């Protein structure tokens, strides 16, 4: 391939990526999301700038220089940066897929995507913090040239982090359990390097050393950093190449399924049939299963932190708030996309009378049933006297009678189907309504808890929660039917959205 051809292809692919974002069926619907994310980034930019000034102020009078402190704890910044990338950065193998039959060498395509990833604006995100901090902490010792070399050094570290992330992400895409590898590595580094030997925090010293070499413009340090990027790039190139062909050539293994009859559910009549569909959807569809398991593990994490640690013991409001989360976490994470999986076979459901209503009921009962898990775990703090049974019941009923009705409203608005078994998955795009409802579901309990606990005290607040929750729970046939009627009023828009997105 000639240089001019490479330039043309590079421009073309960059243009396609731009079009891909702008011509996505969800683009129009996502204008709000876009605006929301700009506001979100703006908020973080201001926050990080403030943090830069604040950190400088905090360490300006300390025995060691402020930038040494930041450099010494660089592992934390790199770890946060690494895990934030899961929500932002895809693997190139996902993008190369569209070009596999084009007369463009796949290795060249991978180079384009990897270079674009290295030059991505995201690698400059932390400059919101580092620039104001560096202006105050670095310039007075090393001048503006020192600041530039300091920032260049950090940028190279973030590029290394993005390459390392890409390797991990590729494996996580194959199996979500690979996520444990970077978690263990960062945890081990932090523990062994900073806390294991309190007299010698070697990781802190390494960070300070690296930072000093950058700021002093040591050419060897830049060469070493760049030399690290080269093998990581090569590994990624190889890995992504293998990944592209693995994805393309992979054949679905046709599993034999011995039907489980779920005889117990037969007693529930039509609702039981929809419950079976719900359970089978989780078991047999990888995307739905991942969603469910993410929610379930989150719920377990909340429960274990709440039940077996003393983190929230001295904060009555936070205690009940976290307890509500133990019960509602799974629902918040799965019901935000309520009916999106069913969008794949919505025509079949709509061809039958009131099947959506039965489905919503089944989903409600399933989510209520899943609350058994947090309830069993919260028995430990109840036995230990950390939580009263009234508070636990209050949280459970508050979830089934207030949080869930709130989340189920999304059934009348969600109109984007999720791919049930995507081989190559992109980060999901949330709609305006999903963001609003899930944000409310996250913060509404906090507001209500705060008001009730402050005004009425813990015990009366628990009784109020039980009362409100029981009313909401008993009235579930009414509010579910109301949601169903609103779904039916918007059915054409919803079905159209599902068809366009599947």
């Amino acid at each position, binding site marked *: 391939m000639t240089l001019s051809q490479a330039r043309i292809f590079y421009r073309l692919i960059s243009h396609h990526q731009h079009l891909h974002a702008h011509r996505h069926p969800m683009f129009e619907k996502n204008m709000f999301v876009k605006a929301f994310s700009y506001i979100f980034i703006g908020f973080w930019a201001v926050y990080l700038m403030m943090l830069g000034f604040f950190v400088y102020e905090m360490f300006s009078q300390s025995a060691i220089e402020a930038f040494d402190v930041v450099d010494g704890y660089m592992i934390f910044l790199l770890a946060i940066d690494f895990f934030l990338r899961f929500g932002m950065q895809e693997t190139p193998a996902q993008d190369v897929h569209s070009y596999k039959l084009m007369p463009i060498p796949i290795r060249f395509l991978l180079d384009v995507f990897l270079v674009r990833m290295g030059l991505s604006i995201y690698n400059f995100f932390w400059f919101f913090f580092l620039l104001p901090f560096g202006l105050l902490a670095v310039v007075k010792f090393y001048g503006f040239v020192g600041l530039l070399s300091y920032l260049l050094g950090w940028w190279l570290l973030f590029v290394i982090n993005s390459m390392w992330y890409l390797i991990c992400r590729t494996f996580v895409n194959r199996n979500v359990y690979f996520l444990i590898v970077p978690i263990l590595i960062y945890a081990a580094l932090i523990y062994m390097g900073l806390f294991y030997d309190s007299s010698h925090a070697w990781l802190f010293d390494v960070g300070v050393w690296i930072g000093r070499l950058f700021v002093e413009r040591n050419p060897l340090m830049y060469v070493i950093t760049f030399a690290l990027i080269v093998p990581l790039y090569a590994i990624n190139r190889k890995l992504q190449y293998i990944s592209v062909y693995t994805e393309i050539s992979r054949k679905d293994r046709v599993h034999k399924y011995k039907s489980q009859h779920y005889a117990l559910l037969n007693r529930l009549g039509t609702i039981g049939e929809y419950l079976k*569909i719900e359970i*089978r959807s989780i078991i047999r569809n990888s995307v739905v299963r991942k969603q469910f398991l993410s929610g379930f593990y989150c719920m377990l994490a909340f429960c274990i932190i709440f039940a077996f640690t003393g983190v929230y013991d001295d904060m009555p409001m936070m205690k009940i708030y976290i307890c509500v989360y133990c019960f509602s976490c799974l629902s918040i994470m799965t019901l935000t996309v309520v009916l999106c999986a069913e969008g794949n076979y919505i025509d079949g459901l709509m061809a039958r*009378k009131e099947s959506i209503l039965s489905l919503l009921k089944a989903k409600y009962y399933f989510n209520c049933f899943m609350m058994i898990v947090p309830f069993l775990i919260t028995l430990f703090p109840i036995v230990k006297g950390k939580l009263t049974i009234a508070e636990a019941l209050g949280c459970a009923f508050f979830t089934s009678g207030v949080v869930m009705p709130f989340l189920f409203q999304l059934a009348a608005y969600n109109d984007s189907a999720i791919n049930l078994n995507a081989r190559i998955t992109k980060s999901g795009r949330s709609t305006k309504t999903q963001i609003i409802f899930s944000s409310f579901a996250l913060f509404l309990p906090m507001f209500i808890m705060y008001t009730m606990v402050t005004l009425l005290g813990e015990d009366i607040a628990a009784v109020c929660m039980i009362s409100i929750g029981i009313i909401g729970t008993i009235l579930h046939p009414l509010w579910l039917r109301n949601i169903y009627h609103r779904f039916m009023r918007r059915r054409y828009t919803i079905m*159209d959205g599902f068809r366009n997105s599947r």
Partner: protein
Amino acid sequence: MNLTIENITKRFGDKEVLNINRYDIHSGEIIGLLGNNGAGKTTLFRILLDLLHADSGTTTIHGILPDGSHVSFDTARSEDWKRYTGAFIDSGFLIDFLTPEEYFSFIAKVNNIDSQTLSQRLKLFEGFMNGEVLGRNVLIRNLSMGNQQKVGIIGAMLNNPQLLILDEPFNFLDPSSQLAMKYLLENYNKETGATIIVSSHNLTHTFDICTRATLLEHGRILKDYQKDYATLTTEIEEYFKWNAF
């Protein structure tokens, strides 16, 4: 079941995709809906089944049920007609992570069909399934397109609908299954008196089974033929030939 379509129009953006002043389908007819791609066949089906909003007009399903009662439903305003209707348009009708047995059982249960009746009804489709659908313990999505088509069609017929709507039912089917499909539809129509509407690009099969054929072009009814094999084959084949060259 009779079906009356009045003043139905549908536009996608600037393009008019359907414009039918009046179209009556009578109980017991087998209608063959013919037309090239973009003629509006699937759009018409989706509007009939209330899966798509018509810009104007109404579709009414009316007739006398086997128990003698007279019913009339505006498909956009009521859901009761769904009890008497069966349809299969595309994979959007299939819950593809179920096995065929689970799917049929689901349809049976939500239609109040007991397992014994279900087994009896499935026996009627044994020839059509040709041993490739049941008892394989694989999910619908792992079946071939032809077998998925069979599952969809059987699913649409399980509740013995008085109105059966099938979009391109011969697609993906092997020659034996296509013949079985023809026999199945003719037999079902004879035994139950149900109204059947099929769209197809396969002129021979459509001519063989339909009692009436309607030719659509750019969303409008170009011609409505009562069954007269000679006229059908000559005129319609002429139409498609003229369009091809």
